[in-house]
């Protein structure tokens, strides 16, 4: 059981990240065959448009991703009026940068402070703010993260090499409704006068989930 789960959810993959699918299907795994069969069937029954499938995949593979969220963070760091708008109405403030839609309909921005480190999880499924972060990484959807983030957040942060000072509160946000959370990490010292573009390049996906912090390159 344990081994099965860890293999499915957790084991780092073996370096070549794509199956080498063959046209005759002889080397497809059972799940690959099953997905392929269902795709043919749903197209044959007219429920899905095959070209629409390609566009959906391309959208989340190439167009929507954490660079969007990094733009939001960099603007919040450099534009106090925008930061204030984010605090009051994150959905509207984020939409003003063009990031809207599915799984980002009701946004809340969580600002890290000297007193509080915010961290986001979805214990019940894998809710995640797609328009600003794209699709979630495997670990975010994994049983270890979903189970442990709420009961031992500091131990989970250790798995990411992050230590939060004992006198700061780690505040975990469990996304149980359709509200989606974006962490606004603290701006690192030594970035005074940097442009939004330079700052955005520093912001990592994990920092916007709360399992990372933003640091200057060594």
């Amino acid at each position, binding site marked *: 059981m344990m081994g099965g789960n860890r293999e499915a959810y957790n084991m780092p993959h073996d370096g070549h990240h794509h199956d080498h699918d063959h046209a005759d299907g002889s080397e497809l795994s059972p799940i690959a065959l099953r997905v392929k069969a269902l795709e043919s*069937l*749903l197209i044959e029954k007219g429920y*899905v448009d095959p070209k*629409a499938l390609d566009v959906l995949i391309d959208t989340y593979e190439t167009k929507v991703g954490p660079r969007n969220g990094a733009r939001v963070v960099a603007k919040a760091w450099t534009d106090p009026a925008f930061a204030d708008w984010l605090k009051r109405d994150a959905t509207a403030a984020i939409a003003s940068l063009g990031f809207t839609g599915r799984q980002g309909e009701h946004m809340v921005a969580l600002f890290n402070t000297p007193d509080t480190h915010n961290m986001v999880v979805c*214990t019940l499924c894998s809710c995640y703010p797609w328009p600003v972060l794209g699709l979630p*990484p495997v670990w975010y959807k994994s*049983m270890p993260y979903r189970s442990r983030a709420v009961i031992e957040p500091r131990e989970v942060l250790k798995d990411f090499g992050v230590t939060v000072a004992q006198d700061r509160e*780690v505040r975990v946000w469990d996304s149980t409704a359709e*509200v989606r959370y974006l962490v606004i990490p603290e701006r690192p010292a030594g970035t005074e006068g940097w442009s939004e573009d330079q700052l955005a390049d520093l912001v990592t996906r994990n920092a916007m989930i709360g399992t990372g912090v933003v640091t200057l390159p060594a």
Partner: protein
Amino acid sequence: MNGPHDMGGFTGFGPVLHEAGEPVWHHDWEPRAFALVLAMGMTGSWNIDEARHARERLPAMTYWRSSYYEMRHYAMILQLIELGLVSAMEEEHGRMAVPPKPVKRVAKVEMIPAILAAGSSYDRPSNRPQGFAIGDKVRARTISPRGHTRLPRYARGKAGEIVAVHGTHVFPDSSARGQGEDPQWLYTVRFTGAELWGKDTKDAVCIDLWEPYLEALA
């Protein structure tokens, strides 16, 4: 339901293993499975709560052993068969054997960008009076419904404080049962780690909870 999806507080799933530079997909079938779930969702055959509930109704061991996209695929097959959109034999063979059932919409390729950009909001007008305000002390009810709920087990019976009010949103417990949206007030409730886990900690968990999940604490 007290299903396998309700992960918060479990231990025994091991460390959170994250992969540096993780690709969007790890197998060729994953984007196809992802796109099929999205495209079928766009036919309007089920709502988001019914889709989540289908995943929760998978056998527990299937849920825990499967990778995320496998789990989504299995849950969709369950829905397709239950709704008569696909027969079990068709799913097995990948060929149509019975005529398609009418669906509300087929998402054609040209419709996809607009559908994704629009998303679907979940706030709904309601005449229900707002029962709680920021600062109110509440207790999450102890419930064990057989159907869908978004009140995680680890919060049931625990006392917390209202920290945000989000207006009235679709109530998943009703929506997942096909009993209508029944909009209810949605709050963020902050629970201390001490209350949730009996731990000496200053950390806390914030959870989005609908009013029927809560009772006033005197």
